[in-house]
């Protein structure tokens, strides 16, 4: 948990909501759902120490390991 990054991201997310909300008031519910869930995803991920965490990129690197070994030679 890194509070600095998390707090920074929270401020940015709040600014994005303030900036976009007036424009999207009349939009269908689906749009708002997508907007907020994507923001929430970013916010949640910013809580972790993401650089050291195993994630999709690391899995893909492992998945293509045989090719990587071929390129190493």
């Amino acid at each position, binding site marked *: 948990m890194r509070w600095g990054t998390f707090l920074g991201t929270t401020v940015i997310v709040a600014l994005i909501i303030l900036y976009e909300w007036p424009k999207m008031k009349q939009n269908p519910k689906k749009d708002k759902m*997508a907007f907020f869930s*994507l923001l929430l995803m970013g916010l949640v991920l910013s809580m972790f120490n993401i650089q050291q965490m195993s994630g999709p990129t*690391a899995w893909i690197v492992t998945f*293509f390991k045989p090719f*990587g070994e071929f390129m190493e030679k």
Partner: protein
Amino acid sequence: MEKGKISSLQMAVMMYPTIVATAILGIPSVTAKFAKTDFWLSPILASLMGYVTVYIAYKLHKLYPEQTVIQFSEHIIGRLAGKIIGFIFLFFYIQITGIIIKEYAEFVVDSFLINTPIIVIMGTMTVLCAFVVQGGLEGIGRAAQLFVPLFIFPLLIAIILVFPDFEFKNIFPILGDGIMPPIKGSIVPGGWFTEFFLMTFFLPFLADKKKGMKYGMLTVFAVMITLVVVNLVVLFVLGTTTQTKVYPLMNVARYISFGEFFEHMESIVMAIWVVGAFVKISVFYYATVLGTAQWLNLSDYRLVIWPLGILMIVFGFWSMPNSMDLERFNLETFPIYAVLIQTIIPLSLLVIAAIRKRKSKRNSKGINSG
């Protein structure tokens, strides 16, 4: 969803920096690792990948003229499977855009702004590109038209100024170890050339659709020529030491000393890099945003610009503690990953679509004659 129209020339000037921008900086040394002094041949072989990808993208576009890959994959292989393919594409583009932003920032931090935190460089570039994407496809097209000359001219000037330092004999021996080393060297640039599949997001919005294929092929050719010239310049100046440099073009720019007045031309490389990366990131960003909005059936793609920006930055950092990991990813994973997503999946879609079309034609014929 997208009401703007661009010309095929604008598409070409958008695609050109999308491939060249990052390829001229890091690729020469990666290719030189495999191909030694023959690394200038590798882009020629790698460009085959580009021609194939453009051909596939255009053929798919012909079958479904008004749709992007996110939409027509649902038509080709059914709703659920199409959504899964769409998700794979979006995931790939979000991840790759994040990694490109990281790559851009890493070069700036390594070479110029040593004490600036990397998140500041990444953040400012993302904000800038987000505003351009908000301007829509026409906005990106015009920005690219405006900035691409600023990308090409400094490059030409740098090549002319470094001319006195050329050692033409560095090119020998040509094919000293046979044809295999340049072929292996072309694998990594080949991954870059598959990025031409991004055309699929622009082809539906062309004002002159007939020229789409022609300009696409021309862009691949222009990219190939640029990469060959840059690789030759690097080879003539640095020779066999190319493979030990991280950013060979940067080292070449340091050689410039013309009339004791033009010196320290690294800033030229920096200008090329920033302008190129700006267009490249905007194009990727736009494709991701438009694709996401189509995937979720949103009423406007502008809604997801900012949330996706945060996600991209997150992906730039995810499992990438330092610049070595980025380099390894580009060398060992990206070439095969990009070919799989941007060439093999579209090719299978095209084959399935062609078979289905033929089948339905035959069926309707059978009904008519029977």
